[in-house]
């Protein structure tokens, strides 16, 4: 049994979860930093719950990356018995995961940039918080689409 295909698939799985997590990490950091600058301590504590939700928005991308990793693992039979994956199939898995690897990073960073001014808004006008959260949510469409693309492309690759 050859392991090249499995190695490529594992590499892809690790890369997709790492890159997504890295993007989320930067996005969340940006969201927090800018918010800290904008708002004083006592005000911040009052709005803790809502601001936490805002800060968690750039975090979803890393969860999608993790989901993609699980999908690849099930595809090559990692949890139970390994399937015989040819190097070409490994390559196909690599290409199918490009959406998760590439799209998640800029989208979470830009979502982080969008979330930052929202925190300030939340403190100034708490009654309109439903509106402001829509702007970063629009950016969320693309990580969801890329996860969907990866799922669809992975599904029928013959291994």
């Amino acid at each position, binding site marked *: 049994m050859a392991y090249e295909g499995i190695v490529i698939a594992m590499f892809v799985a690790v890369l997709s979860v790492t890159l997504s997590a890295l993007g989320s990490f930067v996005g969340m950091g940006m969201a927090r930093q800018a918010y800290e600058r904008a708002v004083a301590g006592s005000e911040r504590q009052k709005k803790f719950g809502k601001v936490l939700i805002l800060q968690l928005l750039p975090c979803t991308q890393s969860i999608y990356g993790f989901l993609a990793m699980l999908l690849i693992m099930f595809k090559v039979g990692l949890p139970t018995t390994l399937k015989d994956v040819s190097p070409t199939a490994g390559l196909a898995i690599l*290409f199918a995961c*490009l959406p998760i690897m590439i*799209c998640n990073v800029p989208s979470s960073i*830009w979502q982080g940039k*969008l979330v930052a001014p929202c925190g300030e808004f939340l403190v100034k006008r708490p009654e309109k918080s439903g509106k402001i959260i829509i702007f970063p949510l629009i*950016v969320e*469409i*693309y990580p969801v689409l*890329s996860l969907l693309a990866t799922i669809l492309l992975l599904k029928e690759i013959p291994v």
Partner: protein
Amino acid sequence: MEIIGLAIAISGAALGATLSGAASAIGCGLVGQACTGVTSEDPEKFGALLILQVLPGTQGIYGFLAMFWVMMKVGLLATPIELTLHQGFGLLGACIPMMIGNPISAVWQGKVATNGVALIAKRPEELGKAMIFAVIVETYAVLSLLVTILLVNGIPVG
């Protein structure tokens, strides 16, 4: 079953969807930054600003649509058909408009729509004019999608 052709076709479809989606995320982010600023001053303008923010978002949808087109072509939605390496590269080449034309237009549309946000902030009644400048950029994204669909249709497979 030899699947190298299929793998190359998947790379084209995936890259087209990815790069378009990433560029759309950047475009929506650019406009969104201006939108959050204006909304915090005047929440009444929210509706008009939202329209401007979703304009650079269409490119991501086009990339996704092109991906579906390629997937239908190679039978990835049901049972994959056998492709030669050359057919795979043909499909990869057909997706190039989605990798270059679409992302660039998404980012620039974002920049134009950001200026549209400034226009709305000063004159809320001029939403139509602010949209038209951004929609002109949309033409080239639509043309890219059209080119990809026509090229994919023309490649003989199976």
